[in-house]
Structure formats: structure tokens, C-alpha cells
């Protein structure tokens, strides 16, 4: 075994394996990128949605919430919150934070303008329409 399976042979298998895997991964990625427009509906990526994502990022929402299952696990999933709660509830909710209920997990106050609230909602609406293969399993996220 060790006479046949030398170090240089092991090294060559490594190179071959990595090149093959990387090429296959790139090919799959290429195909995925071509298919994604039908699944993420990027034709609906309005200026509002884009601004909404920017607000999402600069307020670090993902530091407490998940979105499509990724992020922190401290607060509810927001990928489908548009469907769970609707636009008005979301805006009202953000406005009244923090609840200040003793001992309860708190969400900060972000002092958003009406326009910014609409942007956030637009972003969450767009996100809720991505084809996620039916994830999450139910509306609770």
C-alpha cells in the first residue's frame, strides 16, 4: 500500500480533486446565476427595496433576527414577516420600540422617517416573495 500510495501520488490526487471540484462548483454556480432571476423576481427590485436593504444592513437587524433562516436567533424570522403581519403592523411595531416590558427582550428605537419605514416594508415584501422551496415550514417562521 505505501509503496503504491506515495506522497507525490497523494499530492497529485489532491490537485486533481481540487481542480475538478472547483470547476464543477463554478459550473453549478454559473447555472444557478442564470436560473435565479426567475426565483428571486429581481424585476421587482425597486429603488425602495434597494434602500430598504441598505437600512436593514446599517441598522444591523441581522444581529438579532434571521432572514431566510440566516442571522441571529434572538428574535423572530423576518423573511416571511410581511406575510405573517402585513405592512401596517410592521411599521407600527418598529415605531413603538422598545417595549420596555421588564425582563423582555428589547428591540432598539431607530427613529425612521415614514419614507424609511416604507422602504423597510418594501424590502421585506420583496424578500417574502423569493422562491424558497416553501421554507419556512409554516407562517411562524
Amino acid at each position, binding site marked *: 500500500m505505501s509503496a503504491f500510495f506515495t506522497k507525490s501520488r*497523494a499530492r497529485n490526487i489532491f490537485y486533481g480533486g481540487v481542480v475538478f471540484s472547483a470547476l464543477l462548483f463554478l459550473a453549478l454556480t454559473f447555472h444557478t446565476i442564470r436560473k435565479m432571476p426567475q426565483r428571486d423576481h429581481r424585476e421587482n*427590485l425597486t429603488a425602495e427595496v434597494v434602500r430598504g436593504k441598505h437600512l436593514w444592513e446599517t*441598522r444591523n*437587524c441581522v444581529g438579532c433576527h434571521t432572514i431566510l433562516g440566516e442571522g441571529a436567533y434572538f*428574535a423572530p424570522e423576518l423573511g416571511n414577516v410581511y406575510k405573517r403581519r402585513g405592512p401596517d403592523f410592521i411599521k407600527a411595531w418598529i415605531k413603538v420600540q422598545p417595549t420596555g416590558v421588564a425582563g423582555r*427582550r428589547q428591540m432598539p428605537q*431607530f427613529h425612521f422617517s415614514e419614507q424609511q419605514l416604507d422602504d423597510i416594508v418594501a424590502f421585506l415584501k420583496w424578500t417574502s416573495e423569493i422562491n424558497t422551496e416553501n421554507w*419556512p415550514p409554516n407562517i*411562524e417562521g
Partner: protein
Amino acid sequence: MLPLLQYPSQAVAKPYFITAIGLFVGQILFGLIMGLQYVIGDFMFPAIPFNIARMVHTNLLIVWLLFGFMGAAYYLVPEESETELHSPLLAYLMFWIFLIAGALTIAGYLLVPYATLAEMTGNNLLQTMGREFLEQPLPTKVGIVVVALAFVYNIGMTILKGRKTAISMILLAGLIGLAVLFLFAFYNPSNLATDKYFWWWVVHLWVEGVWELIMAAILAFVLIKITGVDREVIEKWLYVIITLALVTGIIGTGHHYYWIGAPAYWQWWGGVFSALEPLPFFAMTVFCFNMVNRRRRQHPNKAATLWALGTGVMAFLGAGVWGFLHTLAPVNYYTHGSQITAAHGHLAFYGAYVMVVLTIISYAMPILRGRECNPERAQVLEMWSFWLMTVSMVFITLFLTGAGILQVWLQRVIDNPQPFMAVQDQVRIFYWLRELAGLVFLIGLVLYLVSFFVKDKPQTVAVNDVQPAAT
């Protein structure tokens, strides 16, 4: 002055290791703050909201591991290459740049509202902030690239002018991969789905790709030193391990593409390949035990041997077993983004990367301090800290797994699924237990720190020991 150090320039590793340990302490303190916020929701609010504590916790983790990897490279590459480091000056300079950039970033998180920080640091020029693990302001990200390039250059030049071993080449390949993949941190399309797709090229391809190369190389180096086993044997193993790692890990990225808008075929590609990802970790476990069993010398640094074996076992448990648990699409459909994920994240990061950095520190730090190994009493204390940290991390993982199973059941499986917050209230007991285990972890970490300052008992003890033989 340091007779044991084969090449004086290896000494640049020391400040890297010391800083790594210091930041580790900070990471754990913020972990404990968050752990408390999980059960006492308004703890420290609004001074330190959860998301801020989380950024500090995870970013400190990544930064101290990077300090550890760099220290490891500066220590082992001269010895492998049998030559002095290309430029110790550059290494010191980069140390200070990285430390200052890191400190400013953490201070920024804690002292300035995140949105203001983003505005102040040019996030509007190129929007990269506010994504998990990649929260750093633009100047910090650029700083990371500069430091990584200078570091890779320094290590690369050292290897080029000296002996080229499999260990140093694989380490270098891993480090280059680390630097190159980080460039995807600068790509942030406004399309959330594609953003996520490439975000994983940093996060997944780091921990389940190139970092495994770094880890395997560091382990191999330490094992050669402490076991005296033939380099040929060890290096052959090394190639097998890293082949398994990359062949399964690259396409295994697909286990993150199930539910983010990518085509459904990723459930197969990602599932099958990532289900094989435990193999390289299993190979590392077997490798560690095999080498230690075949050892040709009894190295006096028993603590380092323990860390090396521990890395083999815990990486397999955390990454291999806990990763496999939720990697197949039908399971992941229910567990995705739950406390199960957090359980796995903790044991995998600890078992693989924390422990491998502590392994090289355990081996190298005594030598950097001018002795082959630490005094017996210091080693005993270090081994206590090994057990306290490792066992408490296993318990953290078990408690989070318990919380996760209940969470998934109540929120996603049963007929009348309950809202997130209602479910969180019902699993509080697990969060309390996790916090308790976290405190034990902290005690272990404090013992670890103390072990650096413990000296042997005064000489008289040794004299007393000899007396019975004389009578």
C-alpha cells in the same frame, strides 16, 4: 538568550499569541452578556443591545483566530523552511496595524450607533456592512486585506528562499485561500438572494474549506514535533485529509443554498457532498491518535499532546457529528436557523479552530519563553483548563441542542405552531443551563491564563523527594 528557538525571528509569533488569548477573554465575556440577555431580555439594554454584543463576540472570535493562525505561521514556517523569516519587521508592523484596527473596530461597535459608524466610515461608498460576521466598517475590511497580503507575502518569501515542505506549502495554500475568499466580503449586491449566495463563499469556504488546510498543517507540525514520527508518513496523511476536505467542502457549500432562492437541485448537491464533510475531520481524529500511538519519543509537553488529541476528537464531534445532524435537506428544512445551528456553530468553532490554535500555543509558547515545556504544575493547571473548557462547551452544545429540538418541535412541526417569542419562553431553562455552563467555561479560561504564571514549587521539594531513596 532563547537557546531553544531554532530561528530568532520565530519570536514574532509571541505578541500574536498573547493578543489572541487576550481577545479570546473578551469574546467569552460578551458571550456571557448575550447568554444573560437570552433569559433577562433587557439586561444592559440600551447600553449594549444584543446585536452589538453579538458582533463583538463573533468578530473577536474571528480576529483572535486570525491572530492565532498568523502566530502559528510565523512560528512554524521558519522552522519548516529552515531559514529566518523574510521580514520580522513587517510582521511586527502588521501586528500593530491589525491590533489597532481591531481595537478601533470594537470600540466603534460599542461607542457609536451602528448606522452612524457606517456613515462615518464610508459605507455609502461601498456598502459592505451589516451582514453577519462581515459587520466590519470598510476601513477595517481594507485593513484586513492589507494585513493578509503583507502576511502572505512575508510567509511566501520565507518559504521560497528555504526548504519547501508539504506542511508549509499547505499552510500557505490555506492562507492564500483565506485572503482571496475574503475579497467576496466586498461584493454585496442589492439582491438579497445573490448577496447570500456569495456571502457563503467567505463564511462556508473559510471554515469548511481553506481553514481546514491551515488546521491540518498546524496539527501536522505539532504532531511531528511531539511524536517524532517520520515526516513522510505524516505528510501523506496530510494530503489525504486536505483532499477529502476540499472535495467534499467546496460543493458542500450547497447545504446553505436550500432555502435562499437558489435552484432546488442544491438539496441534492449540497446534501450529498456535505454529508461527506465529516470524513476529513474523522481522518484528522484517526491521524492524531495514530501518530501519538506510534510516537518515537516522550515529549515532556504533555499539555500540548492533550490539546492535539482533543482537537482531533472535538472537531469531529462539533463539525462532523453536529454538522451531519442537520445537513440533509429534509432535516435542515426544520432546523434551519434554529438553536441547533447555534449548538453546532459553537462546538465546531471550538473543537476545530479554537483548539488547534490553543494546541500550537501550548506547544510553542513555552519555547518562545525559553524552555522546552512548562513546569509540571503549570501543565497540570493547563490540562485542568482543557477539561473545564472542553466539557463545558460540550454542555453548552447539549443545552442548545435541547433548546433547538424543542424550538423546532413547537414552532415548526406540531399542528398548531406557536410564535417565536412564545416558544422562547418555554425553553428558558435550557438558556439558563447554557449560561451556567458558560460560567464554567470562563473559570476554565481563567485557569488557562493562570497557568502561564505558575512556577514549580521551590527546590526544597525536589530535595525532599530524593531523600527516601537515600535511606
